[in-house]
């Protein structure tokens, strides 16, 4: 009897150990959950894509500042737009080409203006999600941009336009859905002149793909500029660097010469 108990205990310990090993192996893919059962999206995430240069497929090319050489050159990319091309109306397509021809003087990011949605997501900078049951904060390293996402005020409307928009969230299963309206007309999608109008709506979907990745989709609806809604998608990766944290990229200081240099004493004519 005594021996039987001992043997049973031993085998129980053995199977627990096996269970622990298999649990550890699977833990990489297991989506963490908050106490209310939602996917736990807390953490620091980043896109790895050249979408910020151009949402559509594009070749690598020399950058605009010759002294920067290869450091300032533009990487190519396969594009992130479903179907390959953004469905512009004819006049809007001309404006996009004009924007591209005047990229440096017009790209709002060059002036350190808040990047808007969805561009903030795929800048070459990390962002952090801080998740509460009724509210979620997206805080971006670039320009200290941030968005407060409200879960508890469905169907409410933006009271004033803003650069990072009015953000309403809800969950569809394990997918975080954010509807963004009320964005300033001035933001762009990328550095290729892709733009939108003042009544754009963006629907973003963040779906966990294992513990350390999110599948990101954004659907753009703006009948003033596009013939139909269109979609981009890309993965977002959890930053696994030890002790990773956001650090300042408050770029306002870096663009004062660009914006105000011509008004300096001794420079202004």
């Amino acid at each position, binding site marked *: 009897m005594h021996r039987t108990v001992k043997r049973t205990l031993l085998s129980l310990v053995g199977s627990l150990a096996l269970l622990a090993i298999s649990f550890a192996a699977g833990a990489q893919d297991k989506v963490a959950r908050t106490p209310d059962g939602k996917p736990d999206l807390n953490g620091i995430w980043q896109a790895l894509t050249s979408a910020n240069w151009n949402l559509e497929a594009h070749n690598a090319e020399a950058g605009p500042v010759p002294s920067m050489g290869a450091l300032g050159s533009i990487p190519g990319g396969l594009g992130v737009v479903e179907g390959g091309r953004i469905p512009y109306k004819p006049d809007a397509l001309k404006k996009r080409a004009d924007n591209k021809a005047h990229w440096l003087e017009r790209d709002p990011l060059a002036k350190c203006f*808040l990047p808007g949605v969805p561009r903030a997501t795929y800048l070459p900078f990390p962002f952090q999600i801080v998740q509460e049951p009724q509210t979620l904060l997206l805080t971006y390293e670039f320009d200290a941009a941030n968005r407060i996402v409200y879960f508890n005020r469905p169907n409410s409307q933006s009271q*004033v336009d803003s650069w990072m928009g009015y953000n309403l969230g809800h969950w569809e299963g394990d997918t975080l859905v954010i509807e963004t309206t009320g964005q300033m007309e001035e933001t762009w999608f990328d550095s290729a002149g892709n733009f939108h109008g003042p009544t754009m709506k963006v629907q973003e979907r963040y779906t966990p793909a294992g513990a350390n990745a999110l599948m990101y989709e954004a659907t753009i609806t703006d009948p003033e500029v596009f013939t139909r809604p269109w979609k981009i998608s890309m993965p977002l990766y959890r930053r696994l660097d030890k002790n990773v944290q956001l650090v300042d990229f408050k770029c306002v200081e870096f663009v004062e010469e660009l914006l105000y240099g011509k008004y300096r004493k001794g420079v202004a004519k």
Partner: protein
Amino acid sequence: MNRLATQKVLLNSLLIGVAVPVLATAAFAAEPGKSSKYVAPKTEYGQPDLRGVWNFSSDTPLERPAHFKDREFMTPEEAARVHRQIEERSAAADQAARAPASASRDPGGYNQFWVESLAQQTNLRTSLIIDPPDGRMPPFQPGIKIEAGGLGPDTGGERPVRFRVGGVRKDGPEDRGLSERCLAGFNSGPPFMPSMYNNNVQIFQSKNTVVIMTEMIHDARVVKLDNRPPLDPAIEQWSGDSRGRYDGDTLVVETRNFTNETQSFRAAGTGTTLHLVERFTRVGKDRVNYQFTIDDPATFTKPVTVLVPMVRADGELFEYACHEGNYGMKNMLSGARQEEREAVGKK
């Protein structure tokens, strides 16, 4: 104040003004945190729940006025009298602003509709400083210079300009204060301090992270709760680097790694030597006590502790897109160049 800078900010302030009743006057017990048996609600992680938008407007002076001598608290009657005086001053200021403007006169800025001149709930304390016990700033260390700007004429002085409002001259953007350059809010700190308007902060809490987000300058300061090692001293940041822990019902936040481009506190010192300790304690359904200690022996002969009561706000934070609408900077600089041209023409 960047008066001309942001039409958007004006609009934002308007909305906050509507959302938040500015003249609530329900009097508080002198120190509810100490006397009441209040137990803070908890988040789903068992932490004291500090979530939401809080307003830290105040009509209590930082330093105790001399006539209160060693009195820490006013009577409710004295507080009511102070309130009446503030309201009368505000009404008089608005009356003066209604006088027709002339070409030569300053067109003025905000009327009292914008201004948070009274606390949301009466604070009977005679000063925001609670330590030193006399409610006054301790002496500066020898050789520490006061560098302060203001809404009046430029003050002269050297770069870097570490103060927030006003400027030293108008030769270039670097001659202006940090809030005119949209690099820091005039009340955003850290530590954040009651000022003219937009005295709003939202606190976010998740398991390992707290975010302290002031409306001014859309600064979301991320507080790490996971006992990570200190940040490399080579990293210097506008809002420092914040680490936190819960001590009972109090969130304790310690911040270092401030940049040399800001001041320590009270128009003196630099961020480099500042060690800031903040304590957020939920002391009532609608109130959090924000208490902070300036620990900077290079600048001050003693630590300074300040207590700012915060009251729950029903409104939301609006986006303070200061830089995007900073027409004020261009106008100030190009106006100064025009004045120089006119001065040459007169010679």
